[in-house]
């Protein structure tokens, strides 16, 4: 267990500089976005009010007030989220291949550590989850900051103050911050399962090379099908309630995760090739 924590610490530190840069980039873009959407709105308001001789309340009645969607659906927010997600998706692959490719032969050292090899796998998986959760945490804080900026620029009468619950019900945010703790566990558990499946597919490729790419691809397809069994059943029969679909998906995800961990352990112990 101790070795597992050491490896997690090691994996987190390895990506920390790039990850901090990513967080700074997301923060800067979203803060600029908060200023830009607010200033643009105010410019539009002032121009329209001057042209049409309107008061603030008349403007709001005719054109609507600023609400948080103005920011959420701006390119600043969407692009920063897509950018961060893309970097993390790339890192899911890079976290393994960086130990093999280029000049690095660090995989020799990792595999020769006096610890169960599955700890390497668990540490990399944990590191990815920590990065995701950290990014989500930063995003929650950023929403607060962005709201303060908007409040500072746009007067009360020109904006609609929405409740946190309402803001977090928007499409993107409801996906990042599920409403209930159970949904949170289910959604992020499903995410962890997907990452574990991709990790195991990478190990197939690293163990069997060209044949491994095919094996990995087949394995990913089978895993997706297994996870999606409840949705497929629902599509065919239409008998299941939403809660049943969620419950069954949790079961198929746990099963898929178990298989991914078992296969990864087997490949790392018996088939890995450096």
């Amino acid at each position, binding site marked *: 267990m101790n*070795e597992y924590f*050491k490896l997690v610490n*090691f994996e987190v530190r*390895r990506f920390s500089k790039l990850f901090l840069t990513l967080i700074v980039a997301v923060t800067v873009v979203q803060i600029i976005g908060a200023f830009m959407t607010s200033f643009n709105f105010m410019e539009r308001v002032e121009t329209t009010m001057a042209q049409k001789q309107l008061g603030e309340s008349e403007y709001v009645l005719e054109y609507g007030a600023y609400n948080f969607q103005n920011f959420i659906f701006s390119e600043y927010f969407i692009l920063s989220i897509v950018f961060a997600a893309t970097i993390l998706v790339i890192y899911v692959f890079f976290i393994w291949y960086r130990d093999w490719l280029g*000049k*690095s*032969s*660090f995989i*020799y*050292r990792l*595999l*020769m*550590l*006096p*610890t*169960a*090899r599955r700890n390497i796998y668990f540490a990399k998986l944990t590191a990815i989850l920590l990065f995701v959760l950290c990014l989500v945490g930063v995003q929650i804080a950023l929403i607060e900051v962005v709201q303060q900026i908007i409040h500072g620029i746009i007067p009360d009468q020109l904006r609609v103050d929405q409740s946190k619950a309402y803001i977090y019900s928007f499409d993107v945010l409801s996906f990042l911050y599920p409403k209930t703790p159970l949904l949170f566990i289910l959604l992020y558990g499903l995410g962890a399962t997907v990452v574990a499946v991709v990790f195991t597919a990478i190990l197939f490729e690293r*163990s069997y090379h060209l044949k491994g790419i095919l094996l990995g691809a087949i394995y990913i397809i089978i895993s997706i099908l297994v996870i999606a069994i409840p949705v497929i059943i629902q599509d065919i029969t239409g008998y299941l309630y939403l809660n049943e679909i969620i419950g069954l998906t949790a079961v198929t995800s746990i099963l898929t995760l178990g298989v991914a961990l078992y296969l990864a352990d087997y490949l790392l*112990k*018996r*088939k*890995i*090739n*450096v």
Partner: protein
Amino acid sequence: MIEVKNVYKKYKKKQVLKDMSFTAEKGQITCLIGINGAGKTTIMKSIMALTPFDRGEILIDGKKINKDAYEKITYIPDRLTMLPNYTIAESFEFMADFYKAWNEQRATELLSFFKLNQQDKLSSLSKGNAAKVNLLLGLALDVDYILMDEPFSGIDIFSREQIANVFTSHLIENRGVIITTHEINDIEHLIDKAVLIGDGKVLREMNVEEIREMEGKSVVDVMREVYVG
């Protein structure tokens, strides 16, 4: 003792190891000799469970390799096994963090023996110095067996001499060493046992001292007999 018993491995239709068998004892330097592609590196990786084999058995002191064995045996490949952005000092920290067998005193001793600077980044080292760091990271572990893959490959003559000196020092004493090379001249006078490998199998296994005394032949003489015919 390391026992390699009838190890067979096929890779992409090619038989890389054809029922290879040999032993390497503790306290002895065993040299695997063979041309490139003979299977020297593959058998070393097989011993360390870094590549799978199809059949046969490898035992270290009578046991199959497991996680605890990495405190007893280490492998020094022909490339750096540490993060290139680490300094030598950071490499030491990493090793100390993960290996109970890490001997900091010996590491420091080796550092001055090889005249290396702790603050140097691994990525900035010359090939010769990188090979020395690699050797250092393996030798500073208090392990019973050390496997070295081509430690003299592509490095300057002075670094070769320094590395060769390691074999006659207390750093190797009482340990079992398996070393591969295709340039036997550097270490012929140092080795106890030679295992001549060709085409994935052991062509000849011999005690160097015995051959010298009984038949008056050097390792190179026997190599000529085996490889040239």
